[in-house]
Structures are given as structure tokens and as C-alpha cells.
């Protein structure tokens, strides 16, 4: 999957699951505040990325993936590793 296509897909599934507008999701935006995630719904985001893209974000890695840009890079790199 090309990176731009991946980005669009990630935005689409996150917007759908967390009931946000796709336009709210930008590379520099903070994931937790944009999607209004608490410690429980953060689990759902991790599960969603794993089930949709086959990429597991481990507990220690979650803290490093703060923005959507970081998430795109993380998922893209793991998918192409």
C-alpha cells in the first residue's frame, strides 16, 4: 500500500470508529485530544490499527506515537519492514 493511500485509510477508520470528521485528523494533531481518547478508548485505537492493518502497537510504543503523523510513519514502517 502506498503511504498516501495508507494515510487516507487510517484517517477513514479512525474517523468512523471515534465518530469524528476526517478533516479533524491532520498529521500534526495530537491523537488523544483529537479523538478524545481516555485510557480505555486508547485500547480500542490500538486494537483497531491491529485488526485493520495487522500492526501491533505495544504498550511502550503507544507513548511515542503522539501525533497522527507519527502514527502514519509507525504503521507504514511496520507494514514495510
Amino acid at each position, binding site marked *: 500500500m502506498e503511504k498516501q493511500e495508507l494515510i487516507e485509510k487510517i484517517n477513514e477508520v479512525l474517523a468512523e*470508529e*471515534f*465518530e469524528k470528521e476526517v478533516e479533524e485528523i491532520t498529521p500534526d494533531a495530537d491523537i488523544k485530544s483529537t479523538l*478524545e481518547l*481516555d485510557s*480505555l*478508548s486508547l*485500547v*480500542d485505537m*490500538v*486494537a483497531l490499527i*491491529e*485488526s485493520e492493518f495487522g500492526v*501491533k502497537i505495544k504498550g511502550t510504543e503507544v507513548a511515542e506515537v503522539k501525533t497522527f503523523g507519527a502514527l502514519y510513519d509507525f504503521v507504514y514502517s511496520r507494514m514495510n519492514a
Partner: protein
Amino acid sequence: MQNRVVITGMGIYSCLGKNLEEVRDSLYTGKSGIIFDPVRKEMGFRSALTAKLDVPDLKKVLSRSQRVYMPEQAKYAYCATVEALQNAGIDQDYLNSHEVGLLYGNDSSAEPTVLAVDKMREKKDTTLCGSGAIFQSMNSTVTMNLGCIFKLRGINLTVSGACASGSHAIGLGALLIQNGLQEMIVCGGAQEVNPFSIGSFDGISAFSIREDEPTRASRPFDRDRDGLVPGGGAATVIIESYESAVRRGAPILAEILSYGFSSNGDHISSPNVEGPSRSLEMAIRRAGIDINEIGYINAHATSTHVGDTNEAKAIYNVFGDRRIEVTSTKSQTGHEMWMAGASEIIYSMLMMKNGFIAANLNFENPDEDSAKLLIPDKRIEKHFDTFLSNSFGFGGTNSTLIVRNL
């Protein structure tokens, strides 16, 4: 001095309708909520009969973070509770500024449990169960969800008493109010309807196999009954002290006169006569009324051979040859199990308020014991002001409530 306990609001979501008005009409016309579900047959069920109701879509009503922890029965309970609170004239400001309790009957949450276990087995990764699974799969799921959504701050407890859960919840709530520990409690019962929840129940041959005639399958007290039909949904009643209701100018619908209870101390699935009789006698004794004041008996009768026979014997033991109408609304709804004790209070209330007794559907031929009771097979127009409602459950748990019109 004990407080009087009154009912000031009711709400229901069942196979007979999604609100009080629809359910009242269904009771009046004798509608059956039972269908044949081909999905169950494909799953290997002995009986594919079930009550039919749609899971409400709450997407535009509640936020994702509220919905994600709710299994189907919590959604039914939410709908019933919204209606009951409106009915009682209670808004969120009232709930925010008073200590309102919550006691709800529920005794399973199988579907989210099964789905989470499936996911663990398939993926070997518990994260994939998602955040909702744990909260959806606990027995207390209904009270934990309703307590958070409505921001309730009084007692918050699920009552698991098998098929008497909803009745015990109301009875225990009444005791707390009588003794001044709470002024108002949201009480009720909820029951999931998905196949996972009752597959193992089907497995012990408890269900009717009259699959070619779904609406004739649930036939409490009838000689040719061959088992129960599972149902579900949720029912909520708002109970409060008489003083509280008067103080806030609430519509007072009825008074809970008494709660009787007992345990059979006997077989896990087969009820006896002595245990239920004691529950009935306790309720009548505590109500402090003349037995002749009771104008209607809403029986537990689920359409099983032993259960209906023993309840008929228990009722006859207590009421003798008094000609008081006895019916089981399960002839229309199937057995609403954890919900039944609460929903049947509402069904009886709707009949009491509207001056009729719904037909005991499919009561075509009595057996030796049901012949001793007055069981109308057609709806009758009758004014009554006091009724008694029985609920019995696995393990021999019994609950009886007596309610008077106000």
C-alpha cells in the same frame, strides 16, 4: 415507622412494544411476540423459538464512550429507564441534586463474553477484545452503565436471582425505601435475547419445540404445554417514598404493599410447592391486607410441566377456592427471565390502570391443577385495585410482590 413505597414511573422495551402505550395495546389485543428464528436452527438449537425485538440504535442518543460498554440488555434498560424517568417527571437536574439509587435484575451477559473468548482463542492477543468487553460481560453491566449514564449516586447494585431477579430488585428496593435508607430507586430487570445467552438452556430441553406454531408455543397452564419460549428486553420502575412523591408533586401510580421471598432449598431446576407457597404467604402477611382484596394474580408460569403444576398448587394452597383471575403474561412474551419480575409488574400495572386482564393465550385445556384456578383464556374487562405477582427462579429462589392502585 416505615415509609410507604410508591411507584411513580414505568418504562418498558419488550417484544410487545417499545413503550408503555404499545405494550398496553399488545396486552389488550393479545398479541404474541414469539417467532421462529432460523439462525438458532443453524446453530444447532433444539428449539428456534424466541421473542422478537430489535436492539435499539443509540448512536444519535449516546456518545461512543457511553455506548461502547453497553451490551444489548443495557441498551434495552437504557430505553426503558428514559421512559420511566420521563413518566415519573424526573429530569437530569433532579438526578444530579438527589441521591437516587439503582437496583436492577440481570443474571448473564453471554454474548460479549463469548465474543471476547473467541477473539482471544483466534488471535492470542487480549488487546483485540477491545475496551468494552470487560464492562459488557460482567453481570453488573446494566447497573454500571445506567449508573454512569444517568449519574446516579445512591445504591448501585445488580440483583442476580435467576428468573426472579427483576422481582427481587424491586422488592429489595422497596425494603431500602421502607427503612429510610433511600428516597428513590430506579429498579428493573433486563434480559439479553441473543442466541449465545440461552443455547445451554436450550440444551437441557427446557424450551417448547412447537416450532410450526410459534405464537401457540408458550401456553402456560395448558394441558399440552411442552416448555418455555425465551424472551427478553428490559423494564424499569421508579420507586420512591410516598413523602418524596408528594413533596415533588409526582404522579403516584401505585403502592408496593409488600415483598415476600423464600428459597426452596431443594432441586436446582425443579421447583416445589412449599417454597413458593411460603413466598406468597409472606407477601400477603406483610401486606396487611385481606386476601380477598387481591383482584388479580400474575403468575410466574413459564409453560413448563413441573413449574406450572407446582405454581398452580401453591396458588391453590394459599387462595383456596376464591375465584381470583390468574394469568401468565408469558403466554404473550415468552419467558423474559431476569427481566420478567419487573416487566410483569408493569404488565399488571397497565392492566390495572386500564381495567382489563389480558388473556392467558393458548389456555385451551386445563390439567388437573390448573383446573382449580380461574384462568381466563380471553381478555376480560375487569376493574381491580390490588394484584400479586410471582417470580421464581433456578436454585429455588422465589419472590412475590403485592401492589395496590393509588
